């Protein structure tokens, strides 16, 4: 009798963990373990198979912080993130504001603006590669130019950034559309009677009304932009020179071309720290700044 009761008690205790088990398992295998392993690897020199061989402590990090190439990567990434975030939010917002009224065919427009969300970055990159081609690309044809967009260090980064911005704009469009639908229509009516024009309504009602959603998309977009990879891999492979060598691509190159897994791991950790700090700072600012 007593043993049975105790068993039952034990079962009650274990039960919740059993429910958590599947997701914990998935997280453990694909997230926690790789993360721990990455930290571990970043403290070693590895062989070509990626096995830790010589313990170097913070050697990999010191090497990175004295390498010009790494600073270039960070610089390029910052510029890239800035362009992507600003442009993708602007595109998403423009689309959402344009689609925030009803007229025949509105669904077609909405779908079109949300579509980039559904396109894989690799296929989009391939399409852009053709569009940007120096001799047969439609961009040069339309603009009557002869620019080698992808091979010119001046333009390569901007091209990759614009592509990424367009890809990210789809989900932003969705978020902003939802946010706009939440703003009380009578506010706009009152503003009309009060004498506000469209621009005044946008800056004094629409933008503040979207405040919380704008912030959320900003955070997500920044993180997403830092992690861009597929476009770079297909469009420019980090080139020309190192002009599009974003951090994630640099990690990929160090690990799978140069077989320096230790260095790559250290870079990953630094990228993680950068994103974490940025996110924390943004939340701090949000708490002070966004009032609603």
């Amino acid at each position, binding site marked *: 009798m007593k043993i049975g009761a105790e068993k039952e008690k034990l079962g009650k205790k274990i039960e919740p963990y059993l429910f958590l088990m599947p997701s914990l398992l998935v997280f453990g295998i694909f997230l926690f373990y790789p993360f721990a392993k990455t930290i571990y690897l970043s403290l070693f020199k590895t062989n070509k198979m990626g096995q830790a061989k010589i313990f170097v402590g913070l050697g990999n990090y010191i090497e990175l912080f004295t390498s010009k190439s790494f600073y270039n990567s960070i610089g390029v990434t910052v510029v890239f993130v800035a362009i992507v975030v600003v442009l993708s939010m602007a595109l998403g917002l423009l689309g959402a504001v344009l689609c925030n009224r009803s007229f025949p065919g509105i669904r077609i427009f909405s779908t079109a603006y949300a579509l980039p969300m559904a396109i894989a970055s690799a296929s989009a990159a391939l399409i852009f590669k053709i569009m940007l081609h120096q001799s047969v690309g439609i961009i040069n044809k339309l603009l009557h130019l002869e620019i080698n967009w992808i091979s010119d260090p001046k333009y390569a980064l901007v091209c990759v950034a614009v592509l990424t911005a367009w890809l990210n704009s789809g989900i932003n469009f969705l978020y902003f559309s939802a946010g706009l639908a939440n703003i009380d229509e009578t506010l706009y009516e009152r503003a*009309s009677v009060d004498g506000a024009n469209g621009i005044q309504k946008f800056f004094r009602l629409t933008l503040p009304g979207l405040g919380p959603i704008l912030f959320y998309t900003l955070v997500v977009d920044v993180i997403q932009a830092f992690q861009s990879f597929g476009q770079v891999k297909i469009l420019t492979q980090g080139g020309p020179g190192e002009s599009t060598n974003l951090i994630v691509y640099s990690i990929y190159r160090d690990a799978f071309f140069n077989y320096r897994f230790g260095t790559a791991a250290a870079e990953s950790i630094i990228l993680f720290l950068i994103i974490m700090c940025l996110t924390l700072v943004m939340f701090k600012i949000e708490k002070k700044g966004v009032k609603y």
Partner: protein
Amino acid sequence: MGRSMAQLELRNVTKRYENGFEAVSNFNLDIQDKEFIIFVGPSGCGKSTTLRMIAGLEEASEGEIWIDDRLVNYVEPKDRDLSMVFQNYALYPNMTVYDNIAFSLQVRRLPKKEIDNRVREVARILEIENLLDRRPKDLSGGQKQRVAIGNAIIRRPKALLMDEPLSNLDAKLRGQMRVELAKLHERLDTTFIYVTHDQTEAMTLGTRIVVMKDGRIQQADTPKMLYEHPVNRFVAGFIGSPAMNFLEGVVCCEEKKLWLRCGARMDFELTWCSVYSVLTDYIAKTVTAGIRPEDIYLEEEYRKMGQEEQKGLKAVKVTVTARELLGAENILYFQAGENDLIAKVGPECAYRSGEEITLYFDTKRMHFFDAGIGMNVERCELG
């Protein structure tokens, strides 16, 4: 406050939706400067739609809207120089009270100094000076209401439009704000156009009331005229609380007198009725008689009256069904014949449900409506 004249004119204004539904039909009204106009009617009668057409938030399908001799059908709301208080107040949630009030001046780029002076003046009038730094979510319903009014009056508009502004407040606050709105109208000397479904608000605030039903104006008149000379049965039933009692009856002529026969126990001699001469046209026809609850008296009250007053009062035996004491008065529900009626009597009445008593109906103050079309018989005579 200095301001321009405001005369509004609505000519045959109709609002028809795409599905063919007519929310407002053939609306004609002249609104003079400084009037306090009330649009009143049951929900769905088109009163709000009319207001929104005046504001420019909805387009009139037909007809013309004139403000000060200017056709405004195709003028943007922002250029009509009107202001509006919305039912849900429509305060900008991201702005402080100060900015909410100042908004309409800020978008017109008035000098900061002048805006500041005017915001403070308005805040003083509305007694919300201490709230200027707060945000709408930190305000109570009554305070929000004041801020919304503040925003509406600061611009000194040609007319102030209000769409059920008090309906979100509790009963006590509603009473207070009603008094303050009346004061405000006196003080601002501006045209007010006010939409409500509450006939008490309409009667107490309006200098002129427009009673609407199914998109049509039933009657546009002063509160006194609406109360004493309702144009039809709908207006008679809508204005006044508790609502007017209605009795069906046949007009008869016996012993050279006119009588109204309303079933077995109720015959009313019509000799003292104000519309006696008109009723002669209705002999042998059915009419609807209306009598307000306040025109029915208890026996005690009847005895206290002078002889002159007693004239035209008709005793009716009734059965009490319920009584509500409202402090200074009693609402008596009773049955007379087959009719369920209501009387408003003095506080001393202590009858209980089931008791048989005698009540006195004042035939002098009875209204008569054509049983078919519901028009007041006095109007039928006019045409």
